[in-house]
């Protein structure tokens, strides 16, 4: 009965209800989008990790985040390799250099990743297959997501990087994330040729692959013992927690999208409240009549809550569909893994229900004015 009444009131004035649904749709969509960015930004920082194969990451104690990892001695990785649990210990070298072959004579900075081409560390077999090219002197693979200002990225083009001539040996797609405007892969040997002040014996990161069946947490503990306190070891979940907290607490990302999230939520409440309050005051005589014939306050407020729920539910599902489309666009534009996960839908759905509850609560005061005695005054 409550549902039937709420439904009748809403469908009685279809245009107005449609407006309310559109408003709620926009507000929920904005909540989804803000939440998407809130999560996408840390994931941009995880891009390289997400697309490489490793169980443990060894880093210097000064490790800040991916692009500011600090350095530690290669000998630590050699030592790690002797542990019975370890299948592979691959060094990574990071550097930034001027790409002096950009468009309009500009020299954008390119992020250079140095690695051992024998280590097939990428999840993408397409990249692993191409790594052999890097054994040639002064040859690099370039990420296709590198910005247009770097000029054409055609294979065999010779470009000038940090004063050296480097040949593009091929391209791959991994995504540049927050590593920079452009990213290239080179062999460790070519890396130290590009950066003469860097030494092979000082590495930035070590990727550890464990033998099948080894528990990462236990292996991390025994490696910590083996390698001593000069380095830190992250398991994958620890690494993700570390990077996420870096981006949300150290940068302005958290506040920026967090406050956008809150305001869009309030705007949603306002829209629903607006519609409910109007409907209630327009139907006030009818509500008063219901009261007069014996329906209690609980029934009336139940009707208002049902109306609120119907409006937000009608807005939620189209917003979910539209958000899927927008996430798709963000994914394609940025290559960030912005995905509509179950928990995310659940969170926004809960927020939507809260929206309905808050607006219904706000419009109760109008309902209380429904006084049968006023009916014929």
């Amino acid at each position, binding site marked *: 009965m409550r549902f039937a009444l709420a439904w009748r009131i809403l469908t009685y004035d279809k245009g*107005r209800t449609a*407006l*309310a649904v*559109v*408003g709620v749709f*926009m*507000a929920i*969509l*904005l909540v989804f*989008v*803000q939440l998407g*960015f809130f999560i996408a930004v840390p994931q941009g920082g995880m891009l390289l990790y997400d697309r490489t194969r490793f169980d443990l990451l060894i880093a210097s104690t*000064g490790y*800040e985040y991916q692009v*500011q990892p*600090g350095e530690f001695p290669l000998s630590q990785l050699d030592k790690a390799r002797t542990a019975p649990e370890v299948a592979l210990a691959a060094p990574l070298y990071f550097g*930034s250099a*001027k790409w*002096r072959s*950009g468009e309009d*004579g*500009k*020299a*954008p*900075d390119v992020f250079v990743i140095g690695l051992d081409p024998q280590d097939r560390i990428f999840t993408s077999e397409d990249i692993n297959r191409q790594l052999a090219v890097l054994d040639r002197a002064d040859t690099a693979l370039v990420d296709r997501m590198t*910005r247009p*200002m770097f000029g054409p990225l055609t294979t065999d083009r010779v470009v000038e990087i940090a004063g050296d001539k480097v040949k593009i040996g091929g391209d791959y797609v991994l995504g540049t994330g927050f590593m920079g*405007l452009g990213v290239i892969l080179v062999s460790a040997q070519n890396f130290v040729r590009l950066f003469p002040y860097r030494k092979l014996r000082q590495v930035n990161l070590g990727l550890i692959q464990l033998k099948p069946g080894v528990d990462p947490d236990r292996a991390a503990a025994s490696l910590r013992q083996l390698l001593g306190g000069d380095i830190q070891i992250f398991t994958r979940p620890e690494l993700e927690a570390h990077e996420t907290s870096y981006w949300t607490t*150290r*940068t*302005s990302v958290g*506040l*920026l999208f967090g*406050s*956008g999230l809150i*305001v*869009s939520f*309030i*705007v949603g409440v*306002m*829209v629903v*409240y*607006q*519609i409910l*309050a*109007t409907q209630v*005051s*327009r139907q006030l005589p009818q509500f008063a009549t219901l009261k007069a014939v014996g329906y209690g306050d609980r029934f009336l407020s139940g009707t208002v809550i049902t109306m609120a729920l119907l409006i937000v539910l009608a807005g939620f599902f189209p917003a979910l569909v539209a958000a899927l489309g927008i996430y798709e666009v963000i994914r394609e*534009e*940025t290559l960030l893994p912005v995905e509509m996960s179950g928990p995310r839908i659940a969170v926004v759905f809960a927020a939507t229900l809260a929206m309905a509850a808050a607006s219904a609560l706000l419009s109760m005061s*109008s309902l209380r004015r429904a006084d049968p005695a006023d009916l014929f005054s």
Partner: protein
Amino acid sequence: MITSPNLGFWQRSVGFVPLAWRSLLANKPRLLRSSGGIGFAVLLMLMQLGFERAFFNASLEVIRLLDGDIFLQRASKYRFATRDPFPGRDLEAARVVPGVASAWPLYASWHEIFWRNPADGKDFLVRVFAFDPDHPVLSLPQLDANLKDLSDLDTAIVDRRARRFLGMDPPPPAAELNGNKIKIIGSFALGPDFENDGTMVIGDRTFAKLLPNPRGGAPDVELGVIKSNPGSDPVTVQRAITAAVPTEIAVLTKGQLLELERRFQAEVSSAGPIFAMGTLVGFVVGMLISYQVIYTDLADQQPQYATMKAIGYRTRYLVQVVLEQAALSALAGWVPACLVSILLFRVVGQLALIPLQMTAELALVSLVLTLSMCLISAVLAVRRVITADPAEVF
């Protein structure tokens, strides 16, 4: 003696406003509700617009502080915050060009110098600017130090508004830069941007010690800061300097330098579209709310409008009253939203250390957006008045 003001003009021109004003005030709870609804939509737009401006302003702030009107930089430099210096002799070539009053170097580093927080011993990348202490080329905001003291080796001034984990507020007496002990002789208040957590200013000698020129001699110049003689035509001076320096050097006015940076930020970051979308949502939601408000008002007051029509008021006049009322509800939402966002900007700006500010421009843009969203919805809703039929009223 006080002369009584001539009220005639006011009475005539304001004569019709009280109708809109009164029907707005007729139902106070409804006014509260509608200004709340519109206000939150405006607040959403203000926040998104404010964030967008803060994002771009943060990266332009330092360029604005440069104390000069013509600048030399390497032509290959694609943005301000990247190290791409040129030999000092090119700046000297510019210094002797007629019309040039002064030409001094700015040295800079964004990704090479690490600051060790003395409180916890952790290292963080910092942005470092350096110049000849006798010829400062950067006007540091709220400077609390004697720049001359920077001529002593291993001295620095730090940014009190740097991110807190750097430990620069209050300025510690000493710290380390790339492993060198540095004495802190004062501070200024600049604040981080979206890439740099904190800023330091050091003397040119200290800079040369931290980042020695690989070719020996004085460090290469990141930016040549030139002041032209008062009275000389800046365009002519700029052209003369361009002719005097090699083609690898770009000669730019401050406007051009700012434009280069703004274009880079707009091209590379997705901040523009992100915040534009938030603003659009605020606008549409605000329109829906104000349509709702105005439509309900009109529905409730239809008998009154029909009566006015019956006693001879023209439709034109009634439409005008509706539009005025819409404009008034726009203001009723905009004013509190503006006040709240001033407060919110201050709080978020302090917490996030970003230059969130309510400016006249921002207030004006949001006012125009608010008025147009309310007026558009009034135009959509006004059909009800036009169709008000006096015969149907009773």
